[in-house]
């Protein structure tokens, strides 16, 4: 397939293709570059017109982020909430995926579709009931509420993606282990799980990303104690005005972990994002 879609013989078409590729890359990269530059500008440089390309970088916006917006608390909240939710979703989801892939379960398709439907649920439907229930239970504005919600939101990815990964491991390997006297648990722990590690890592990165970037639920289900980074970042915006440097710095701070993590784990990204349906 690699060479069959278009002739790449002539030098001119080659240059044309490079130009097209560079222009499209520039289009997608520019806002990110601009966000990063803005986060490093001083208040004077940032509102200069025409916009400044060359300036002396300063970390002033990042300092303000931590002193004025309490970004440290939000960072800790985000990390705590998202890591625990990811962990819980991975454990529950992988077990369920193993059950669906390897055991006879009644209404298997119905259960799988039910899990998938979580992915389709608009957060707006359940956010108000969650708010009311949490107020009554006294867990409003605690990390645990968001952990529960993000665990739920991670489940469809884990169940569907891990189910496909498990199905791809030949059942005969497990059967061999069973015959050799392994219990089902040992068989899963020692034989299947090690083979699943790449899939687990990839799935983890994806549900981490979705939980880390989530805003709507976090903004309604927290008020001060459990605020996450996106909520803090959004508070740099007022209806009429925007604190440019602060907003950009918050953007860089919260996007960086996900960008680094995902780019390290690119290999299974497609499989994970499509809930196992497309091979990457």
């Amino acid at each position, binding site marked *: 397939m690699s060479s069959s879609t278009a002739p790449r013989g002539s030098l001119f078409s080659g240059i044309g293709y490079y130009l097209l590729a560079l222009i499209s890359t520039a289009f997608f990269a520019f806002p990110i570059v601009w966000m990063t530059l803005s986060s490093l500008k001083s208040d004077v440089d940032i509102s200069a017109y025409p916009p400044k390309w060359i300036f002396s970088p300063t970390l002033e916006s990042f300092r303000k982020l931590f002193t004025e917006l309490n970004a440290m608390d939000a960072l800790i909240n985000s990390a705590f909430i998202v890591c625990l939710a990811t962990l819980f979703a991975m454990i529950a989801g992988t077990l369920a995926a193993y059950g669906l892939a390897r055991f006879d379960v009644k209404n298997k398709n119905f259960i799988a579709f039910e899990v998938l439907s979580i992915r389709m649920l608009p957060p707006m439907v359940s956010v*108000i009931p969650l708010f009311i229930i949490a107020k009554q239970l006294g867990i409003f504005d605690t990390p645990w509420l968001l952990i529960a919600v993000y665990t739920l939101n991670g489940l469809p990815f884990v169940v569907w993606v891990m189910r496909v990964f498990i199905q791809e491991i030949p059942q005969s390997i497990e059967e061999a282990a069973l015959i050799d006297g392994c219990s089902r648990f040992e068989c899963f722990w020692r034989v299947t799980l090690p083979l699943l590690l790449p899939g687990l890592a990839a799935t983890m990165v994806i549900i981490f990303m979705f939980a*880390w*970037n989530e805003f709507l639920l976090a903004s309604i289900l927290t008020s001060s104690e459990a605020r996450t980074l996106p909520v803090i970042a959004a508070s740099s915006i007022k209806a009429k005005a925007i604190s440019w440097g602060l907003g950009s710095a918050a953007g860089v701070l919260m*996007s960086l972990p996900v960008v680094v993590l995902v780019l390290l784990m690119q290999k299974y990204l497609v499989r994970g994002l499509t809930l*196992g349906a497309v091979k990457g």
Partner: protein
Amino acid sequence: MTASIESLPIASDRAQRAGERYTGMILLAPTMIIMTVVGLFPLLHSLYMSITGYRPADPDKFQGFVGLGNYADALADAQFLHSILLTLLFTVLSVGLSLTFAILLALLFNLRLRGFTVLRTIIIVPMLITPIAVGITWRIMMMPDLGVLNYVLSLAGIPPQPWAGEKASAMASMVLVDVWQWTPFMFLIIFAGLSALPKSPFEAAAIDGASPIQTFFMVTLPMLRPVIVIASLLRIVDAIRTYDTVYIITRGGPDFATDLLSVYLARVNFRFFNLGYGAALSWITLLIILTVVLIFVKYTGFMRMVNEKEAR
């Protein structure tokens, strides 16, 4: 759990599994419990609220059972219908455009010239950026007087644009932001699909003397269909509930030009605290999304694909 060796001939895995009749259920239990408590319960609570007049901010008004009154009101709510239409327009434009760009990009990058791998990695970054950060950045860039976009346009001799600041261009601006953020997602998936295609149909087409355009429409596109449909399905679901970027950039304005469903719902719920009515609107939204998804799933065999693998 531990069956003795004699009772375990290789072929009778089903019998072996029958002996573990409850293991599957036990494995599924944590997921089912989380789904019931955190997912289903709030959903039913919302369904219940949707048939009441619950609005805690107006204690004078009737709060009790109103039957399907909220739903009837919703169908007569011009603002709501406006939001539905806007959301569908936004979804069609955003998904349609990003799909088109993604296919073109995938074809281009499938030439696999030297250095394309690096560029490809750069291109997927926008989908990883927190939507709130995307909103902040584009809002700064789209400032009519000081924004860098109008500066770049002025270098090319194009007069400054109002972007999200005026009714006529606000929707287009939001579509632009969405296309910027999510074309990489479509591109990544379609590129993966394109790379996995078998070679022989293309060789056959080349032997038959098909032009590149004919090859694309008669060979590439039909073979890519499942991948395209899955990518579109996932995007459609997310586009319908777009909230973060619109909340940051326009909050539904100017003059309701970008008042997408989720923004209108947020206003009914969090500004007017008309929670019973808001719940009814959410449920209608949910039904719209479910309808779209069910049509797509049926049409593509999304479930079948996974189940076939299992029936080895």
